[in-house]
């Protein structure tokens, strides 16, 4: 058996860790653990010099295992694995101890934090003793892509891919392409026709030899792994077996139901309408009240369902500008009508948007600020002889007055919500949701379109509220990833899958039902279970269910975890 030579590196992360953890002491103590050849601390392990230090040490000290104690492995595990690889060491001979997100940032007692950090590093060192080299496998990429969602995001992504000569299966739940943009009249801030954007996209998609469109279709389940997914979809009474290498999820949004806010009396008062309804009226060139007459006073209320903890805490990002756009359009359609904007903060942040706000404010629009977190405006029917239909009563923040806004029509700028079926799609393709049902990206900054599942990308409003340009940017960004992988032709797949020790497996078949991916099958001849490593996603549940211990969850083996637990409690150097 080879001699185990472990290098341990403790990161300062500037002051992020060093402030709360005595990193030098940790390194010094860890150096005394069995098999630890070298233990160092450094300001930024993830930086170029930091990584080079590891590479150099691996070569110089013949290290065969490395532990880095720094931030969360979710951030830098891959970085350091790469460094190991650069040094010619198998990248799985590595373990990370998270002493930033889970130590220095969450504790305020330096001594306790240091003890905890030390424990975690001991655990990691103990664990890494049992790590084994795993070889990356690469698989060929099927150049076809499935795009879920036929809105502007999905269409843009599909075209970007198809224009490079790749097959795209575009799956849309409804009977039409175009999504929400199809209901929009003009775009902001340029006041361009939304149809001018959408119709060419639809035309191109429908006439593209590489795009197959499936309308009225939903996805139940997707099998496989990056580069080689497959799914059976039902469309128009027929079943199609599709095989594809990547997935872009662009399921879009659903508008908030303003009926949930009782003070707005939506659907109780006839002329309280949503932004979508107004959009339709503008498209039809006919902005009228329910009784067919022309409204003399129109009020637009912002943040309906947004920025309020009772509904959604987040900002829906587009409503401010949509509302300004409405003001412009209404001014054009009904020049004499009084317009009121009841807003919270005017979020005109995009290119040309602040200027659009300024030009709109010249158009005789009354801007009124309300407290979107406090008492929401109350819309009630006005008295007969008031000269207007409804009164909107609230506290106006810029003047400090309690006021009533007279209105014949009230437009509610409804929030964007994640699509109601986001959850099911997430399950089908194996991605996660964040708290408010939007999909969670791999990294909020550097990887906004990738997910934690390889080969599955998210784009557009399913990831969070967004306007059209930002959605399209994301669609293209997702396409870029896929195009790059198609150009490479192969992709490396995770090897931390489960594996059956056939010498031990007794064929009880307990494991088969456990696997959610049907990756385990039973080999009648050998009387053992077999894991299809390509289907396996490495959750390790079967490993725990196997009564004989015949299934090993690679990189999370019983041995490794048990030794990590031992390490956490190893008596050596308890005190600091």
């Amino acid at each position, binding site marked *: 058996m080879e001699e185990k030579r472990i290098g341990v590196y403790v990161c300062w992360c500037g002051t992020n860790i060093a402030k709360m953890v005595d990193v030098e002491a940790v390194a010094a103590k860890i150096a005394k653990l069995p098999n630890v050849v070298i233990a160092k601390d450094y300001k930024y392990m993830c930086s170029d010099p930091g990584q080079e230090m590891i590479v150099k040490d691996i070569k110089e000290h013949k290290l065969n295992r490395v532990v880095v104690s720094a931030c969360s492995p979710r951030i830098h595990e891959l970085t350091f694995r790469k460094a190991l690889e650069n040094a010619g060491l198998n990248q799985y001979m590595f373990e990370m101890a998270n002493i930033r997100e889970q130590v220095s940032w969450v504790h305020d007692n330096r001594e306790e934090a240091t003890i905890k950090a030390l424990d975690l590093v001991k655990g990691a060192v103990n664990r890494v003793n049992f790590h084994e080299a795993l070889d990356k496998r690469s698989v060929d990429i099927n150049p076809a892509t499935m795009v879920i969602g036929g809105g502007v995001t999905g269409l843009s992504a599909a075209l970007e891919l198809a224009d490079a000569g790749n097959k795209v299966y575009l799956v849309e739940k409804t009977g039409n392409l175009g999504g929400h943009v199809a209901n929009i009249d003009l775009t902001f801030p340029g006041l361009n026709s939304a149809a001018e954007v959408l119709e060419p996209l639809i035309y191109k998609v429908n006439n593209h030899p590489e795009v197959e469109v499936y309308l009225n279709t939903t996805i139940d389940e997707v099998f496989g792994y990056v580069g080689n997914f497959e799914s059976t979809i039902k469309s128009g009474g027929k079943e199609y077996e599709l095989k594809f290498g990547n997935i872009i999820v662009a399921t879009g949004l659903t508008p908030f139901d303003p009926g949930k806010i009782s003070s707005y009396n939506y659907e109780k008062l006839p002329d309280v309408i949503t932004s979508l309804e107004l959009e339709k009226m503008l498209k039809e060139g006919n902005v009228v009240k329910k009784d067919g007459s022309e409204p003399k006073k129109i009020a637009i209320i912002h943040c309906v369902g947004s920025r309020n903890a009772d509904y959604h805490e987040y900002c829906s990002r587009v409503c401010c500008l949509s509302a300004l756009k409405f003001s412009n359009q209404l001014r054009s359609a009904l020049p004499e009508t009084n317009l009121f904007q009841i807003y919270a903060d005017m979020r005109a942040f995009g290119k040309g948007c602040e200027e659009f706000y300024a030009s709109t404010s010249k158009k005789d629009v009354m801007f009124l600020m309300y407290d979107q977190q406090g008492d929401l405006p109350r819309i009630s029917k006005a008295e007969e002889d008031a000269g207007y239909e409804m009164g909107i009563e609230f506290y106006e923040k810029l003047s400090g007055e309690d006021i009533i806004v007279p209105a014949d029509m009230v437009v509610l700028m409804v929030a964007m919500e994640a699509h109601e079926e986001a959850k099911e799609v997430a399950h089908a393709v194996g991605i996660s949701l964040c708290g408010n049902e939007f999909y969670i990206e791999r990294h909020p900054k550097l990887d906004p379109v990738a997910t934690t599942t390889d080969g599955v990308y998210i784009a557009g409003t399913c990831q969070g509220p967004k306007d059209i340009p930002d959605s399209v940017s994301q669609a293209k960004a997702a396409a870029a990833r896929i195009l790059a992988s198609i150009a490479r032709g192969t992709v490396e797949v995770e090897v931390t899958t489960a594996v059956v*020790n056939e010498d031990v497996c*007794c*064929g*009880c078949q307990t494991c088969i039902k456990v696997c959610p991916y049907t990756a385990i099958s039973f080999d009648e001849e050998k009387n053992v279970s077999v894991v299809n490593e390509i289907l396996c996603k490495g959750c390790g549940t079967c490993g725990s269910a196997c*009564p004989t*211990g015949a299934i090993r969850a690679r990189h999370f083996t019983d041995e490794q975890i048990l030794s990590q637990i031992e390490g956490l409690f190893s008596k050596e150097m308890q005190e600091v």
Partner: protein
Amino acid sequence: MSQKPKIKMAVYWGAACGGCCVSVLDVHEKLLDVVAAADLVFWPIALDFKYKDVEAMDDDYIDLTLYNGAIRNSENEHIAKLLRKKTKILVAYGSCAHMGGIPGLGNFSDRKGIFDRAYQTSESTVNEEKTRPQTETKMPEGTLTLPEFYNDVKTLDQVVDVDYYLPGCPPQTERLVEVFMAIVTGAELPPKGSVVGALEKTLCDECEREKTDEKVIKEFKRPWEIEDDGKTCFLEQGVICMGPATRGGCGARCIKGNAPCRGCYGPPSTATDPGAKMMSAIATMIDSDDPEEIEKIIDQVVDPAGTFYRFSLPSSIIRKTIV
């Protein structure tokens, strides 16, 4: 064969039922072969030897000792240590020596608890003076001693170094003979610490019942609660069977007798704690996602610890009840 010098062999009975010794006798006519190949230098149940005879032996005098039974009292321990000293190959023979066995269940209680029950609270006991066994009793004739009754039951290897384990309650006699013959013939011996006389695979591998992946349990049943067709896997019928987590080698005798496996052969090398493993596997099979329903189903298993650790409590991770 006769040219070869006879090996010296000992058999000792610790905290056990005696079944293991009987199993040695169960070799029947093959005993003659054994005797032809080995001298029995110490076997209290069959032949009259005194401890001091053993004490008088040189170290490593005995070639093979089959120690059966757990370590329950000071005498068990003393002899175990003594035999270890005098023996070249010490085999933990049977479940008790291997994993603690049935006596190991004593670890659900402690000395006091056991004494209270045995000498006081059991329904048939009348002991108004609250007499308890004492390690020393002063009599006019001198001091009488009894071995000390330990607080816990231990396996043999928790007391002395063990060379091989031969599991089973009792071990299959055929296996004993195989092992014995291997030693006698000087065949290459497995590495120290190995379990011998049992399979690497678990019982299901030997079990002839039909197994499918339909292991879903909505209700736990006791064996008498099912109408067994003799063919379907017990687990698939809702009966807890330790087969999957228990080494094969016994020939699936219990199963053949339409009784589920109870785990006397102990875990395969890959499972550290057979009880926990089996608990995990069985829990996985429960067919419910509702916490309350799950609890209800689990409540049908009256004694999980006793069920999953019937033979292995002292060798498990949590070896005894915490008081």
